[in-house]
């Protein structure tokens, strides 16, 4: 363990549970809908918020068939807000984020829909323009900081590189900026460690360096793709706290991609649950955690270990495995794994459920009626607690 890692290790322990308990406590009185996201944009309206994504589709033609990695995703995000995108591996959450960065334009992907960043559509923009935006107005923190940093260049060099591209400054000034950023993300002796190579950093410090790199040009949108997955549990909480502190300092919008509901419970204002490249449920944290409407969300919540539960019981897992994105099941893509598909008079097997509001700003793609969703969740919730 080097440097600042482990300083506030004990805080990490109850992270998921604490955040969740906070949400539930807040819910007891009010409906808590003041932070509800704006609905998935209707096609022709003017772009709203910092990020406005409409009907985003990213498909990859392969020899085996068309992989529909992202299939109709829409959401909006304002400055200073955090959106959590949750789903299992292969649900399309990472592809969505790389699509926002425009990293698929060059490859053989087929992209359609709109991604408005500050009113400018990234899908339609030229590659040169997207490249200008990338790293300056939008930046990304990747999952595994060791493999995401180049082993042959110093940490300072890699941070300064991002700054140099988008700003007309001297190399010396860029290096000083890199040291300053490292200091701000909590690397001790940043002035000397700026010349270290990634392998000389600990895992937590590497992720801090990645964050410093992402912040180098003061981006308006920060995407964090499972930023804590590759880290020790003790370091995870520190990194999340750091991202949250920096968000307040910089006022950026943050997209937090994760399969860990505990992470988003702590940080996110809004939550998007994805399944098989589609939106399963979208709403404020309160909506999704307290009144989840989609059976898949129920499954995710049930499989999360929680410390605010009094009774110890077995964790519930979702049966089956995520579907192949080439042969997505007909009808509701979740129906083969859903315990409640039989209650929809066979519609789950035939019709793709539309995303519809169950309360203002809270969207669920499920054939179960809103009342039925509420009843089933109330039952499950009562059994669990």
């Amino acid at each position: 363990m080097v440097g600042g890692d482990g300083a506030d290790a004990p805080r990490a322990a109850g992270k998921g549970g604490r955040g969740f308990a906070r949400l539930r406590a807040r819910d007891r009185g009010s409906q808590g809908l003041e932070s509800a996201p704006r609905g998935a944009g209707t096609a022709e309206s003017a772009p709203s918020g910092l990020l406005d994504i409409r009907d985003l589709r990213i498909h990859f033609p392969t020899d085996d068939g068309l992989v529909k990695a992202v299939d109709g995703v829409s959401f909006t995000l304002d400055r200073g807000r955090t959106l959590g995108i949750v789903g299992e591996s292969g649900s399309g959450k990472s592809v969505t984020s790389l699509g926002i960065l425009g990293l698929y334009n060059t490859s053989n992907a087929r992209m359609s829909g709109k991604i408005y960043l500050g009113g400018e559509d990234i899908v339609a923009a030229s590659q040169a323009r997207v490249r200008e935006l990338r790293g300056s107005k939008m930046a990304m923190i990747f999952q595994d900081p060791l493999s995401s940093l180049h082993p042959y260049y110093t940490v300072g060099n890699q941070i300064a590189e991002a700054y140099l591209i988008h700003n007309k400054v001297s190399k010396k000034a860029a290096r000083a900026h890199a040291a300053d950023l490292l200091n701000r993300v909590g690397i001790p002796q940043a002035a000397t460690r700026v010349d270290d190579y990634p392998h000389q950093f600990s895992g937590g410090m590497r992720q801090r360096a990645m964050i410093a790199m992402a912040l180098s040009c003061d981006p308006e949108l920060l995407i964090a793709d499972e930023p804590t997955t590759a880290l020790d549990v003790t370091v995870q909480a520190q990194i999340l706290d750091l991202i949250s502190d920096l968000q307040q300092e910089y006022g950026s919008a943050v997209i937090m991609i994760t399969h860990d509901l505990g992470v988003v419970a702590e940080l996110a204002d809004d939550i998007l649950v994805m399944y098989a490249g589609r939106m399963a449920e979208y709403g404020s944290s309160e909506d999704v955690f307290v009144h989840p409407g989609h059976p898949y969300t129920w499954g995710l919540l049930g499989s999360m270990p929680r410390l605010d539960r009094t009774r110890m019981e077995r964790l519930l897992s979702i049966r089956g495995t995520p579907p192949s994105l080439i042969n997505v099941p007909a009808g509701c893509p979740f129906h083969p794994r859903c315990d409640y598909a039989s209650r929809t008079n066979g519609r789950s097997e035939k019709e793709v459920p539309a995303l519809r509001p169950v309360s203002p700003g809270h969207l669920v793609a499920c054939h179960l009626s809103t009342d039925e969703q509420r009843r089933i969740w109330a039952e499950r919730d009562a059994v669990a607690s």
Partner: protein
Amino acid sequence: MGTFIVRRLIASVFLLVVVAAITFAIFFLLPRLAGQTTYSLATQYVGRNPTRSAVLQIEQQLGLNKPLYVQYGHFLKGIVAGEHYTAGPNTVYCPPPCFGYSFKSQLPVWPQMASAIPVTLSLAIGAAVIWLVSGVSIGVLSALKRGSVFDRAAMSVALAGVSLPIFFTGLILLELFVYKWNLLPAPTFVPFFQNPWQWAVNLILPWISLAFLYAALYARLTRAGMLETMNEDYIRTARAKGLPERTVITKHGLRAALTPIVTIFGMDLGLLLGGAIITEFTFGLHGLGLFTIEAIQNQDLPEILGVTLLAAFFIVIANMVVDILYAYIDPRVRH
């Protein structure tokens, strides 16, 4: 970095002494273990129809009847300090570095090798520049345009390059450019410092035949390395920063992909410096390769021993340079 280089230097010197000992043992210990007497061993160092007194003189001269370590020490001393050889009525001084004395050609080994070195060096280095530049650039382009017509064409030519022997491509080139079209002179070696233009004109065909083989190999290696590297996470990070694609490819991709190429290049060059045997033979260039062939044909043991040691020396040096370069390229090796 400084201590790293010093460590490698010391290790290289040690390695050379060991390699010399093994080579020496092959020449002087193995025949004895196989049952040869010192007298019959000595006969092999003399020309045809040796007189008994000449053989005894050589036996004495080489110290074949002394313990092996004494012989080896004697041999090493010769390399460092020089040696006097008595051949027939004359005493010949073999100045350092003395790699032995050929009683058959009645010449010290080192001056013969020394005159052959510039030929091999010119051949190897010229060819190396050609194959490195063409092989790596074709490999990179192939990787970036994977599956394109260029990629397929380049890889087919590369397959041909790997498969065709040098004596085939070399002879075809000679036939076409020299004898049929009279575009180039039949290769003879002109020292670089005497006439650089003639030096290059005479060597261009050997360079191309030799480089074709290696360029093909390097193109395939670079292509594979590039394809692998461009899938690395740090390439995605570089793109996410907003770097222009050219910078992503050269600064982030190529640098990492070249690391294994540097290793192989060092070994290949070291190996070639010991004599590009087939190329030199095909074009009749009197470098170390041709020297080796002649030494083997004449069963001139001191010459074979000398050239073996020199080749080993080049490989050890190349190995050392590669290690140091490697540490320079990859910081993880340094620490």
